[in-house]
């Protein structure tokens, strides 16, 4: 593996409170040296001038759907991880609602094997909490973890039965495996296709209240207090949930949460045109929810930005709004939207790095999140000034269902390195 010298970038490693213009040398798949004026590596080595760019620990996405096995017509591990690499992510955690769902070690092993063969970035599988995600009997969490799962989740559904949720939190503790909950009380959400509020009242779309999310979260937090289980809330979307998580953290409960870029950038008014690319679950919320999410992201109540990258084919999306599948893709737009939040004063560059790298790593106890000497060389180089227009036709993902099509973007990943290997680079850096 050739050495790589990243010359003259702004190296941002908030976990070590490091922020300086300097050089970074990657050798043997590890971060070898960080200091100014490093000599160029030997003839096999590459020198890449990254002046005016940020050099940061590889970004980690806690929440993606790679659709393999079973729904490869939407996405697969190869295309999904290529999209991740292009978006600046060096690692992704893939949700278990595949077909069959990832509730047995055989499925986990298949994902791990496919990722090894075809994956551009690190893939950490997430197993199911319950068999078949049915919410009834616990899945084999021990074996799932042994096969490579880093967490369990029934994402796509909340665990409705309180007793099952209690036992899941307890059982998972024995293995130290975190639970990721998709908070949604099915009875309250009742098939609502958007957020219940002034916009849904005007559009006449069947809607679900924010309380469908926060009511389950409130119950879960009491169960966390009862069991001491490690709990991560997926895609927090409303102000009420922010308040509950904030209080829970103050109580010292072992809880974390993530937010999607689309919930940070858009509101329910975006559903005005009944465009199914604005339909996802949890849905886009009100502007006051959006403001609460931004505040919580800034103050650390929210630990991570996670895309909930949910690829769909036109078959699922070119239909009536209420009939359309939930979900939008996000791997290739998340970073630019986070840079937009820096421009808007919501985040600092250092906080952006924490919420997209160190934060997600800490949530699930994953390696990475820092540029410590000797650590695996997972590095992302970001050009915060690059301007571009979001065009889904150019995405590496198989899917096109982005709500940001046509948006003027600023900031993008220009180089992604995983374990010392370049998995994505902009043309100007091809050496």
């Amino acid at each position, binding site marked *: 593996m050739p050495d790589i010298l990243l010359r003259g970038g702004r190296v941002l490693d908030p976990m070590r409170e490091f922020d300086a213009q300097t050089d970074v040398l990657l050798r043997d798949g590890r971060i070898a040296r960080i200091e100014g004026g490093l000599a160029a590596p030997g003839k096999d080595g590459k020198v890449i001038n990254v002046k005016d760019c940020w050099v940061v620990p590889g970004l980690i996405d806690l929440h993606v759907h790679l659709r393999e096995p079973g729904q490869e017509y939407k996405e697969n591990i190869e295309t999904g991880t290529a999209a991740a690499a292009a978006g600046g992510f060096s690692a992704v955690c893939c949700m278990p609602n595949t077909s069959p769902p990832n509730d047995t070690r055989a499925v986990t092993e298949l994902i791990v094997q496919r990722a090894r063969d075809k994956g551009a970035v690190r893939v950490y599988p997430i197993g199911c909490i319950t068999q078949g995600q049915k919410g009834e009997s616990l899945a084999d969490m021990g074996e799932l973890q042994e096969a490579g799962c880093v967490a369990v989740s029934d994402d796509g559904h909340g665990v409705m039965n309180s007793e099952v949720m209690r036992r899941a939190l307890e059982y998972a503790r024995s293995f130290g495996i975190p639970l990721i909950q998709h908070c949604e009380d099915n009875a309250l959400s009742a098939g609502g296709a958007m957020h219940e509020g002034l916009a849904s*009242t005007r559009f*006449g779309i069947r809607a679900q209240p924010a309380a469908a999310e926060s009511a389950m979260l409130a119950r879960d937090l009491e169960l966390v207090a009862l069991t001491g289980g490690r709990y991560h809330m997926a895609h927090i979307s409303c102000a009420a949930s922010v308040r509950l998580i904030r209080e829970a953290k103050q109580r010292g409960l072992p809880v974390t949460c993530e937010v999607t870029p689309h919930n940070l950038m858009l509101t329910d008014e975006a559903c005005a045109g*009944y465009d199914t690319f604005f339909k996802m679950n949890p849905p886009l919320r009100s502007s006051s929810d959006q403001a609460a999410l931004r505040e919580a992201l800034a103050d650390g109540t929210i630990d991570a930005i996670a895309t909930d990258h949910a690829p769909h084919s036109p078959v699922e999306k070119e239909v*009536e*709004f209420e009939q359309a599948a939930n979900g939008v893709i996000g791997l290739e737009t998340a970073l630019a939207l986070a840079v937009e939040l820096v421009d808007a004063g919501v985040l600092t560059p250092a906080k952006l790095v924490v919420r997209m790298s160190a934060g997600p790593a800490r949530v699930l106890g994953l390696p990475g999140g820092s540029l410590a000497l000797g650590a695996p060389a997972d590095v992302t180089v970001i050009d915060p000034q690059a301007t571009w227009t979001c065009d889904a036709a150019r995405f590496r993902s198989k899917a096109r269902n982005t709500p940001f099509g046509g948006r003027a973007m600023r900031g993008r990943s220009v180089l992604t390195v995983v374990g010392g290997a370049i998995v994505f680079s902009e043309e100007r850096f091809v050496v």
Partner: protein
Amino acid sequence: MTKGFTQRHLLGMERLTREEITTVLDLGERFLEIADRPIKKVPTLRGKTVINLFLEPSTRTRTSFEIAAKRLSADGINFTAASSSTVKGETLIDTALNLDAMNPDIVVIRHAQAGSALLLSQRIRAAIVNAGDGAHEHPTQALLDASTIRAHKKKIEGLTVVICGDIDHSRVARSNIFALRTLGAHVRVAGPRSFLPMGVESLGCEAYDRIEPALEGADVVMMLRIQMERKAGSRFPDTREYARYFGLNPRRLALAKPDAIVMHPGPMNRGVEIDPGVADGPRSVILDQVSRGVAIRMAVLYLLGGGSGEEWSKS
């Protein structure tokens, strides 16, 4: 073409101007008398094709559109859920593209989901008339209601109109709120709180969770049925209790102005939201609504179908 109406489609009342609404109402008035002729037909839309794409059960609205098209001499074709390909797994867009390939001039669509008329208008060349999309809009109903109110009250501006019942599931309520607000009426909605959409006041109306205070001083009382097919059943205990507290009976109607009129878009559930004595009473204009429905739909088809000048009046 008649001045004052520039829409290519009729998707909803929310975006229509007062002038556009008035244009349809005025034209509807002129079409009314055709129903009284011995030969109820004018050649205005001869050679035009109107497809009624009804993907949700409907008898009265479909019949009304069908008669309207026939009285204008258009060729009307019915395409209903039972006979459609949608039950065979075809998407709405594919159905629409197939219909479009037959080059109709107007497609009238009724569909269970909000936004479906808009979706159709984005995909095909024909003019689209929304005949009800989920709980969103039902613009021709609001137009015929406005026509009825104007005929009986000689004006709409300044009137107090109360809409009672299952507001949340009702496209009729939404279209009426938008239309009546634009025309300058004061709109009140009333029903059990579990039937009122969140923040309904933001549409430009007052909301009441009991009907008595809403009825006080009303000029027009519009009753809506409970949409059991949209799972409204979980929102109230039973029809007996509903009738007792939220039904329009003579005692409650007495709270409205003495000359208040009673309307219902149908289908009516006698003994639930409306007492038979009120439905059949002297202040009911329910059947007049139905008659005007045909004339208003003729006006809409005429405006969207590019009917020529004064041709119809000469016949």
